[in-house]
């Protein structure tokens, strides 16, 4: 695979994740259990959209077709999106969103900690900024996991259920293909499969403090590295891309 093509694929993957997760977190507006959490969740949405914006801008530059970050966000079809399946899953109840945040933020914390050392200066700079936000996201998610897990039966049960339900989407975070191989060999990005050990160890720490159990090993969902998604992504894009698609010549 050509270097440029691999770098583009990597950057799109990195950009699509916060774009889609930012969309989901934004859906919490006016629906959170308390005003402070409404602000926290939409603030994280804002972090995510900001990160997506710089990454997709970089992707457009690598692609070299005079596209903008908005063209990539708003005019690509669902088979050309490369976000992990976990980020497109619906918000569910608060515990479900927290579980999704926990899995993703912990992964991102490990991934972006290494991406800071990327030999690609742009990715390294983006990672330096993102890591500060990710640390906060991870703290937010682990604090809530502990609060909900280490509580009465009802709360504990809801949190455990969310942890279990989303488990099948975590394997995909560590999938590594030719692109990852090439990028990690050049010192541009970490090799996702290498992060699984640390991720599990840290996850077990948080879960045990929350008196929750690590789900049993089971079959893992896959597909996003090839642009194959759950049915949810199509609706997310229909929503997100509506104005750009309905008024293709308009500038906003």
């Amino acid at each position, binding site marked *: 695979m050509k270097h440029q093509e691999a770098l583009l694929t990597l950057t799109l993957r990195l950009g699509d994740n916060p774009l889609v997760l*930012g969309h989901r977190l934004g859906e919490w*507006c006016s*629906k959170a*259990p308390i005003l402070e959490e*409404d602000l926290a969740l*939409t603030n994280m*949405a804002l972090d995510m959209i900001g990160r997506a914006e710089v990454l997709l801008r970089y992707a457009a530059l690598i692609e070299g077709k005079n596209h903008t970050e908005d063209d990539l966000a708003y005019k690509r079809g669902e088979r050309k999106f490369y976000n992990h399946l976990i980020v497109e899953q619906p918000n569910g109840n608060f515990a479900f969103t927290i579980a999704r945040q926990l899995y993703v933020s912990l992964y991102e914390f490990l991934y972006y900690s290494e991406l800071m050392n990327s030999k690609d200066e742009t990715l390294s700079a983006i990672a330096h900024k993102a890591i500060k936000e990710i640390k906060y996201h991870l703290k937010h998610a682990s604090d809530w996991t*502990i609060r909900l897990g*280490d509580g009465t039966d009802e709360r504990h049960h809801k949190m455990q259920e969310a942890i279990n339900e989303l488990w099948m989407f975590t394997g995909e975070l560590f999938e590594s293909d030719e692109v990852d191989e090439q990028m990690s060999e050049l010192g541009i990005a970490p090799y996702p499969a290498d992060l699984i050990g640390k991720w599990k160890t840290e996850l077990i720490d948080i879960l045990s403090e929350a008196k929750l159990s690590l789900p049993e090993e089971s079959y893992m969902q896959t597909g996003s590295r090839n642009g194959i998604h759950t049915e949810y992504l199509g609706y997310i894009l229909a929503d997100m891309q509506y104005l750009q698609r309905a008024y293709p010549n308009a500038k*906003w």
Partner: protein
Amino acid sequence: MENIDHQKVFDAKIEQDANIEAKDWMPEDYRKHLIRQISQQAHSEVIGMQPEGNWITRAPSLRAKKILLAKIQDEGGHGLYLYSAAETLGIGRDELIKQLHDGNAKYSNIFNYPSLTWADIGAIGWLVDGAAIVNQVSLQRTSYGPYSRAMVRICKEESFHQRQGYEIMANMMAGTADQQEMAQDAMNRWWWPALMMFGPHDTDSPHTGNAFKWKIKRQSNDHLRQKFIDKTVQQAEVIGLKIPDNQLKWNEEKKCYDHGEINWNEFYEVINGNGPCNRQRLNNHIKAHEEGEWVRKAASAYAIKQKSTVSQ
């Protein structure tokens, strides 16, 4: 006897334009009036997140989405300052929310109108926040200290919101025919409700008397409304938007615009629960509050547990 002295001190402070602070003695009616007004404003900030939140997922560019998210967060933050200001008067947020859900506390009528197109996000920022600012600037000099200080902070952010709203409208008016139509349509739908935000005419405003005496309110509804109209008409003209009022005319003698009569029947119907979104807005708030109860309980139970672990 003691009460009379307190009253004198209070009156003197008001007379001298000094702030009343949370620990100061104040007449019960002053306290009640403030709680009613501040909580209404806090609820307005929070309910106002709904029509704007309606467009977060559909914002037409990443930049627009970021601005909208940031703006809505500001509004929620204003709600928090205002709930805190109300709390200094001896009432908790839970009680204030209960009053909202019971229908005993109101929020601004404007948020009972739907946000139908992206241009509505422009119109809300420009017209609704624009009208709110005129009112809030005046409230920076309100007599209750915590309220006045909250208003100073809020005004800084609101003027930024108004510029953002205007920018959306200006971009659309400089855009395609579809966009121009969308912008004018939003203008047509939001103009009159924005004028209603200032409340009834001075002659029909039930709370005005004491509010003026106590310097909670510094300028009248009609005065503030006129100020809003005069600054907004020009802004509309600059970008080519028409004000949907055939009777709008510059009055050379008075040096201000004369305008057509507001539909007060609609105003009272919406206040009394018959606006297009009253039920939807309140039900959303109640639903989120009820669904979140287990989470709030979990947080407070955990906090208690932590405290007892620390004290052991």
